[in-house]
């Protein structure tokens, strides 16, 4: 591992979290080989008092996002450091959500000191306001789990008694014992139904109030009627009571609901966390010069903000001091940074690369360019929300059919069968129970869970619940170029240089965050070290240092003393001038993903139409399209033009999968029928897209489509199974042959069959 350490340690910037465990060292090595987010080498002194909350004990508390958590040793490092500080009463790291919660006695210590200490250990922290992220989801989740627990407890106890009763039918159980057991079942089941049925009752009520039915209406009806009918039967000492059916129905359905919820929650939190990390806190410079941490949403135009190197710019503004290069990939998709000096305009969300700058805010956070685009996306989202899921479509048909059948049974028995209204009612309720949608309730969540697990194995994160259905419907795939088909990072491809020159240049380049320097420093070999003095990065021009008394420059052509050329400059070259080696030129190119060609060929062979839409210049896009055999492509597209093109495709009847990564793709990611982003995409795009895939390969796109199609096939199979079971069971119920025993067995077996069928997805190649 020592060679790895050396690679990591060549940079002047402190490598963070790199000594706690092997996993960290290795991941650090990987980070240095790929394109990371810029590293904070400057831990800004700032005052997070805006985020300090006083809790019930009178202690002050602070909540922080923490980066670079890998392992148990990280937890220990942070917590032991904090607890050793005077006055700190509580320090707890939450590994699952990557958050840290600290509490200290008021006045005993300074939060900024604590933050600085943690950051110095190698864990960059950002304060946040807990109420911002206060999840309604959390309370809903807890309520669902509690309902699940209660219904599970009740179901098992009632089943205990029911099995006794069923055996009692076969042997000789007296009526008194049976009625006693019924009463005990009632005692357990009724409160449980009242509590655990809430999610369904409330949803059904809302649907009925707005004038239509959803799946929860027949469920609630079945459960309530079954309970009422059972209690009435118990009171007259009759033979059958259906308590077990109603509570077990709720139990199975709650399992399905909970799985569904978990699938959604896991996907949402990744994106919301990214958003939280980036834009919640900013540093404002007060007139006195004191720096304070504020919530991004509290920034007003005219405030002066401090943006450290490596941080993203919180709001649109004008630079008033400092000179640096800004990574504008967020907006333009370019990998080459733009120079910002006094007077330049900078935009929220872009990343400050080289050195700290001070800006004057020209907009509050909801009026920035970034938020305009987010709003554009939100309006497009409304259109998306109209997509009706397969399950809901089935429910639309299912509910009326079931109710009609129950009514027919009731009337049939009453009129034709000439039975009392109690018997008729009982039979029709039995129909309602047996057509129990518990298999239908599990049909989709079961498949979803297995599918997202399968996708996660392939490195794809599923973000919305209906993504699988939409993904299975597509017939066209539209790709963005930079960052999607390409790796989004320049690679050294050629030029004129000697090995010595390369070695020297890459050693010098490791001191800069500029994408071209990073590309060079990736070729660094560990065997030669140079003792550079006076390293200085001049934004817009390059890197300069002194070695053995000679001045070395790595950067733009003119700055390195070459005569200017007027031939076409692709902007992707660096020159080295030094007194020690021959002057050298390095050429870079944004390389395609290793399996881009193979994936696109597979997509075409599978019958999809593939297109390329890019904001880059014509010649580059044409070259890429030819290299990948893509016939339909457009270059120099503005974000609005991309959206327009997608709308043309939609009007032609094509369903489109959009794969893109930059902010300039975000509106089209929302406008498309479904979208995917690579994980190196900007946060806004990750929020906009439905699936996120990791790694350097494009293959996950193919795998996702395959899994989605298989999943939808299995869901349809599940529905067929559920309906087949109904077709078999309903006549039995209508004939009055369904006892609670048969109902319970039927329900359980149909749910089991549906779940086992869903597991078949695991066998997909």
């Amino acid at each position, binding site marked *: 591992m020592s060679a790895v350490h050396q690679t990591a340690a060549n940079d002047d910037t402190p490598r963070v979290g790199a000594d706690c465990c092997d996993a960290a060292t290795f991941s650090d090595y990987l980070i240095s080989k790929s394109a990371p987010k810029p590293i904070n080498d400057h831990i800004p002194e700032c005052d997070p008092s805006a985020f300090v909350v006083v809790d019930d004990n009178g202690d002050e508390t602070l909540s922080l996002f923490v980066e670079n958590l890998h392992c*148990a040793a990280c*937890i*220990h490092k942070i917590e032991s450091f904090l607890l050793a500080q005077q006055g700190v009463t509580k320090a707890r790291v*939450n*590994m699952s959500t990557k958050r840290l919660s600290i509490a200290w006695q008021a006045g005993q210590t300074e939060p900024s000191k604590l933050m600085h200490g943690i950051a110095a250990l190698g864990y960059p922290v950002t304060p946040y306001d807990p109420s911002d992220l206060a999840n309604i989801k959390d309370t809903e989740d807890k309520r669902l789990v509690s309902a699940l627990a209660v219904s599970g407890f009740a179901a*098992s106890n009632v089943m205990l008694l029911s099995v006794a009763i069923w055996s009692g039918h076969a042997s000789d159980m007296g009526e008194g014992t049976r009625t006693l057991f019924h009463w005990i079942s009632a005692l357990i089941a009724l409160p449980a139904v009242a509590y655990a049925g809430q999610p369904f009752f409330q949803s059904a009520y809302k649907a009925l109030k707005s004038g239509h039915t959803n799946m929860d209406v027949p469920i609630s009806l079945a459960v309530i009627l079954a309970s009422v009918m059972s209690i009435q039967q118990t009171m007259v000492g009759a033979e059958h009571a259906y308590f077990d059916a109603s509570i077990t129905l709720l139990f199975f359905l709650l399992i399905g609901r909970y799985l569904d919820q978990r699938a959604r929650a896991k996907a949402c939190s990744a994106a919301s966390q990214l958003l939280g990390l980036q834009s919640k806190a900013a540093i404002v410079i007060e007139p006195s010069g004191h720096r304070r941490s504020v919530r991004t949403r509290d920034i007003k135009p005219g405030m002066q903000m401090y943006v450290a190197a490596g941080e993203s710019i919180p709001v649109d503004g004008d630079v008033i001091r400092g000179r640096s290069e800004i990574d504008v990939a967020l907006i333009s998709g370019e990998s080459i940074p733009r120079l910002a000096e006094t007077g330049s305009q900078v935009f929220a969300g872009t990343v400050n690369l080289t050195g700290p700058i001070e800006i004057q805010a020209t907009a509050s956070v909801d009026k920035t360019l970034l938020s305009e685009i987010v709003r554009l996306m939100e309006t497009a989202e409304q259109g998306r929300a109209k997509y009706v899921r397969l399950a809901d479509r089935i429910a639309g048909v299912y509910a009326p059919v079931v109710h009609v059948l129950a009514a027919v049974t009731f009337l049939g028995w009453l009129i034709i069968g000439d039975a009392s209204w109690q018997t008729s009612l009982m039979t029709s309720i039995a129909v309602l129970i047996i057509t129990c949608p518990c298999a239908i309730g599990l049909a989709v969540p079961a498949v979803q869970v297995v599918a997202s697990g399968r996708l996660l194995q392939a490195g794809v994160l599923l973000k919305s619940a209906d993504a699988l259905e939409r993904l299975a419907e597509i017939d066209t795939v539209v790709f963005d170029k930079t960052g999607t088909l390409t790796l989004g990072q320049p690679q050294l491809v050629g030029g004129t240089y000697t090995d010595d020159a390369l070695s020297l240049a890459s050693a010098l380049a490791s001191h800069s965050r500029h994408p071209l320097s990073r590309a060079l420093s990736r070729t660094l070999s560990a065997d030669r070290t140079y003792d550079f003095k006076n390293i200085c990065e001049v934004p817009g021009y390059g890197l300069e240092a002194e070695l053995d008394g000679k001045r070395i420059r790595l950067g733009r052509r003119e700055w390195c003393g070459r005569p200017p050329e007027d031939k076409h400059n692709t902007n992707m070259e660096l020159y080295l001038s030094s007194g020690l080696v021959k002057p050298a030129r390095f050429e870079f190119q944004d390389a395609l993903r290793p399996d881009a060609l193979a994936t696109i060929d597979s997509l075409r062979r599978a019958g999809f139409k593939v297109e390329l839409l890019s904001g880059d210049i014509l010649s580059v896009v044409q070259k890429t399209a030819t290299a990948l055999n893509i016939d339909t492509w457009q270059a120099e597209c503005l974000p609005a033009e991309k959206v327009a093109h997608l709308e043309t495709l939609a009007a032609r009847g094509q369903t489109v999968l959009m794969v893109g990564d930059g902010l300039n793709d975000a509106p089209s990611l929302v406008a498309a029928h479904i979208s995917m982003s690579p994980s190196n995409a900007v946060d806004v795009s990750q929020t906009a897209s439905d699936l996120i895939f990791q790694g350097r390969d494009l293959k996950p796109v193919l795998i996702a489509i395959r899994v989605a199609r298989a999943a939808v096939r299995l869901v349809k199979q599940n529905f067929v199974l559920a309906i087949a079971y109904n077709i078999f069971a309903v006549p039995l119920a209508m004939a009055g042959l369904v006892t609670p025993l048969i109902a319970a067995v039927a329900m359980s077996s149909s749910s089991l069959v549906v779940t086992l069928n869903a597991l078949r997805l695991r066998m997909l190649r």
Partner: protein
Amino acid sequence: MDVVIYLIPIAIAMGALGLVCFIWAVRSGQLEDMDGAAMRALQNDDGSISSDSDD
């Protein structure tokens, strides 16, 4: 058969106890940080990690 008259309440009481414990666990956030709990299992009593890495 009369033994059933007090066996059933006992069974229900035990089940209810389990239920109460589960609900308490959910409410008091025991199930919040599953990854952290997994990692903390590797810590010593004072929270330290005994390290034996010597590459």
